[in-house]
């Protein structure tokens, strides 16, 4: 019998929307603790300089100042992910504008700000290296003296034999592409409150995407055991990858709080966000592509030189994604990639929605399109001909268990062609074109043979109300709601009877966090399994109480019902009350740890490492003003294989938001530096999309029912941004016949490209 309480696939209102729309939801800066102090950080104004001396005496003497820190007051531990090159405060030199030099805690923000200005630092300026290609040259200034040629990381990946395959190809093309630094620009500035408890433990409130990994990193920096720290998450105002990992300020507030013996709050200003929030890794990508006359894609070779910035965060991992993932978009016979991550005196780069994958998609999806046009092939037909399919084992060892790539390409192409505007307007000044680009991404990432799972706990109280605990973070994307839907569906209860608990590393089950578009697929599956486990306890106990066989009982609208005679039933509330408040002592609690059935990768990065692979394609119509070079996106058709929709509201929200970020990344957003000095220091000069810039978006949802994800679901968070950029570049070529190979696509680039083409003709 079908359970008539169905939450899967519906348009579910977010369960926390009421708190948000009334302004009652508490974000970090909305919290105040008794006796709390306010911190400010002194940051380097120079991209590269030696610190000769720091004098904090005037700051310390200012009334209201409770603690002043320099590196000598901090535990001398290096931290960071794969490469531990970060210290809390600068020790000997500063390596980028924004590098942390000293910190103050005071009674008010104003006093802390005043104290920061009183700290005197004497610098000896050092030569600046602001370009990764120059930084690799022998004799270039070294950002970290122990790292030769500034090369932080390199990868050399090879599958098949590209040299042999290129020799057999009808066409071999070569070109270069680049993408730039773009800032996360979540609306809620990042920050933390630290408080040392009476029992010697440390509590940190902060809106991290990964609370457990954050806790462990803070512990590494402070040199204490991770379980001495509790990380609690208030509401989080967006993250997009830039709040996955901790920042220097996390351990800094802890040390300030210790020294001042009071809780300390620190919130970044928007200028500090722009100076220090890890932007997208910026690569220069050389591509070589071999194909046959019939459009068969044979071989791909890439050389990547990417900017790491001054310190390493997730950039090594991002470079790996960048180097590999697009190889599995088509059925290439061979691929080879040599990539280098290079230190510079610029802002450290790290993760932002797409995590490296978006950068290489821009290059490859642009390149295939322009190559096809050169030899008179239809790019869409070439994509369809070569698209990876369900059942494929890709050359990196991915097992494709569900794949809607062809359907996405087909639909994006079909719908963008419908209702097109005329190709020209204003006597040819305005030209319009369409472009299509596609994508693949992951839903989870094992990263070698490590754990890629998630844990969940579900507890039903004596009144039948359900509490869901997960270690995965909701940054606004709606995972609390997805978890509640999954639990409601499995347990047959009303979603209003479900509470999804806030994150607290002492209470929440272990979770890796919100990245790799893994939360619905992996975290959701954990909730699904925990709900099944607790459901079993309910059914077993109900069978005893109703004296009916377990397989004839279902839970429906909060009642346990005998399927052969629905008048025989018991409410979940009654049953839980009977089970909990008696010697029956039924726990009605389940804790499970789930790890997806992927084997991970070997030392050569070969192997199936994601629970599911996601696919999508965007069709874009643009118009180009040939006089000014201005590009306007008119329409976007965004087709995405989501496996199965859990929350239609959430999926559409991700698509609309991802497309907006995709257009912004491609056309407007740009972090500009002049000899290492950032020129974009706020929202007045770092240009985000507004409501007026939005084109019409048609979302096309393709369901392929993944065999592993919960109810067949796969991730949708990152995929929605990935194909927008190359689809825009392809549409520009369709409109005006020029190929823009570097992001962002500024009017002047388009203008000069059009002029140059005119000169040649």
């Amino acid at each position, binding site marked *: 019998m079908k359970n008539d309480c169905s939450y899967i696939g519906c348009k579910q209102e977010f369960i926390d929307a009421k708190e948000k729309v*009334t302004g009652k939801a508490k974000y970090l800066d909305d919290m105040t603790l008794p006796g709390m102090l306010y911190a400010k950080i002194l940051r380097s104004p120079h991209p590269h300089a030696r610190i000769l001396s720091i004098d904090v005496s005037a700051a310390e003497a200012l009334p209201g100042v409770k603690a002043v820190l320099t590196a000598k007051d901090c535990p001398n531990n290096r931290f960071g992910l794969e490469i531990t090159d970060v210290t809390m405060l600068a020790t000997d030199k500063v390596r980028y504008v924004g590098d942390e030099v000293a910190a103050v805690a005071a009674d008010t923000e104003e006093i802390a700000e005043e104290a920061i200005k009183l700290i005197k630092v004497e610098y000896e300026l050092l030569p600046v290296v602001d370009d990764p290609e120059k930084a690799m040259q022998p004799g270039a200034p070294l950002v970290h003296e122990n790292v030769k040629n500034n090369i932080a990381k390199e990868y050399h990946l090879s599958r098949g034999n590209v040299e042999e395959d290129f020799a057999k190809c009808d066409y071999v093309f070569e070109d270069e592409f680049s993408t730039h630094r773009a800032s996360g620009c979540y609306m809620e500035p990042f920050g933390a409150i630290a408080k040392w408890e009476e029992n010697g433990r440390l509590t940190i409130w902060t809106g991290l995407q990964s609370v457990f990994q954050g806790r462990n990193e803070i512990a590494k920096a402070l040199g204490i055991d991770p379980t001495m720290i509790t990380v609690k998450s208030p*509401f989080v105002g967006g993250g997009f990858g830039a709040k996955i990992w901790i920042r220097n300020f996390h351990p800094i507030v802890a040390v300030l709080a210790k020294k001042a013996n009071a809780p300390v709050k620190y919130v970044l200003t928007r200028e500090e966000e722009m100076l220090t929030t890890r932007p997208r890794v910026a690569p220069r990508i050389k591509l070589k592509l071999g194909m046959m006359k019939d459009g068969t894609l044979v071989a791909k070779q890439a050389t990547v030189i990417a900017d790491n910035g001054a310190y390493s965060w997730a950039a090594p991992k991002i470079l790996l994604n960048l180097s590999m993932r697009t190889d599995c978009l088509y059925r290439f016979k061979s691929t080879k990639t040599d990539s280098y991550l290079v230190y510079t005196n610029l802002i450290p780069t790290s993760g932002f929605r797409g995590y490296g994958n978006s950068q290489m998609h821009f290059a490859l999806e642009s390149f295939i399109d322009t190559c096809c046009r050169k030899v008179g092939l239809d790019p869409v037909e070439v994509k369809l001909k070569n698209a990876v399919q369900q059942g494929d084992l890709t050359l990196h060892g991915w097992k494709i268990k569900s794949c809607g790539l062809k359907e996405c390409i087909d639909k994006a192409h079909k719908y963008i062609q419908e209702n097109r505007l005329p190709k020209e307007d204003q006597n040819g000044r305005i030209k319009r074109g369409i472009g299509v680009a596609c994508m693949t991404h992951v839903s989870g990432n094992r990263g070698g043979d490590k754990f890629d799972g998630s844990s969940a706990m579900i507890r039903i109280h004596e009144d039948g109300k359900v509490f869901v605990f997960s270690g995965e973070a909701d940054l606004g994307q709606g995972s609390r709601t997805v978890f509640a839907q999954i639990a409601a569906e499995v347990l047959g209860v009303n979603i209003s009877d479900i509470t999804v608990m806030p994150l607290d590393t002492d209470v929440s089950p272990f979770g890796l966090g919100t990245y790799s578009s893994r939360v619905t697929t992996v975290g959701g599956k954990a909730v699904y399994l925990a709900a099944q486990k607790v459901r079993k306890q309910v059914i077993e106990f109900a069978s005893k109480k109703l004296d009916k066989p377990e397989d004839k009982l279902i839970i429906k609208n909060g009642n346990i019902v005998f399927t052969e005679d629905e008048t025989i039933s018991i409410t979940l509330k009654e049953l839980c009350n009977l089970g909990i408040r008696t010697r029956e002592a039924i726990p009605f609690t389940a804790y499970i740890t789930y790890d997806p059935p992927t084997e991970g990768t070997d030392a050569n990065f070969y192997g199936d490492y994601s629970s599911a692979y996601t696919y999508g394609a965007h069709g874009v119509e643009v118009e180009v003003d040939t006089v000014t070079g201005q590009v306007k996106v008119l329409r976007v058709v965004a087709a995405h294989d989501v496996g199965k929709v859990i929350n239609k509201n959430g999926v559409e929200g991700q698509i609309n938001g991802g497309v907006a970020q995709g257009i912004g990344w491609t056309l407007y957003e740009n972090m500009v530096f002049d000899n290492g000095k950032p020129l974009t220091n706020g929202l007045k000069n770092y240009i985000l999309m507004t*409501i007026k810039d939005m084109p019409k978006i048609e979302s096309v949802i393709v369901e392929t029912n993944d065999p592993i994800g919960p109810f067949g679901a796969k991730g949708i968070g990152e995929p929605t941004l990935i194909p927008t950029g190359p689809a825009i570049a392809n549409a520009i070529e369709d409109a005006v016949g020029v190929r823009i190979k570097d992001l962002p696509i500024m009017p002047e680039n388009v203008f000069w490209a059009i002029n140059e083409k005119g000169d040649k003709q």
Partner: protein
Amino acid sequence: MMTLSFNLNGKETKVEINPWDTLANVLRRNLMLTGTKKGCEEGECGACTVLLEGKPVNSCIVPAAKVQGKKVVTIEGLSDNGELHPIQEAFIEAGAIQCGFCTPGVVLSAKALLDMDIMPSEEEIKQELSGHLCRCTGYVQFIEAVKLASAKLQKKN
């Protein structure tokens, strides 16, 4: 210090302020009304929007002393005895809320618009909300929400 007297969410309110305090800081720090968010403190993002004499302003760049004797409405003043305002209901129903940080400001701008014109065109909605930055939603559902709110308010009248 100086005493600021103004009408806040329908109530006469007195508060001691510094002459340099911004309205956003007085609301958040002195009056503990944290529904008004600070996203940039440079008047760019719109998260701190409140209604001053019915018109949306960025409270992070309004000197608090300027609202002496005036009427200010914050998000806390919108729902009546715990009942959601129809605009708030519409934002929830249309799926226009993700992280929620920009939401209070956007809802207040939508209110100013709908108070002025209960049936705004799509262009008017875009014009009126163009001072708000939202990084999550792509704004598409904002437009749906304001249209839905317009329908709800017309039904109510």
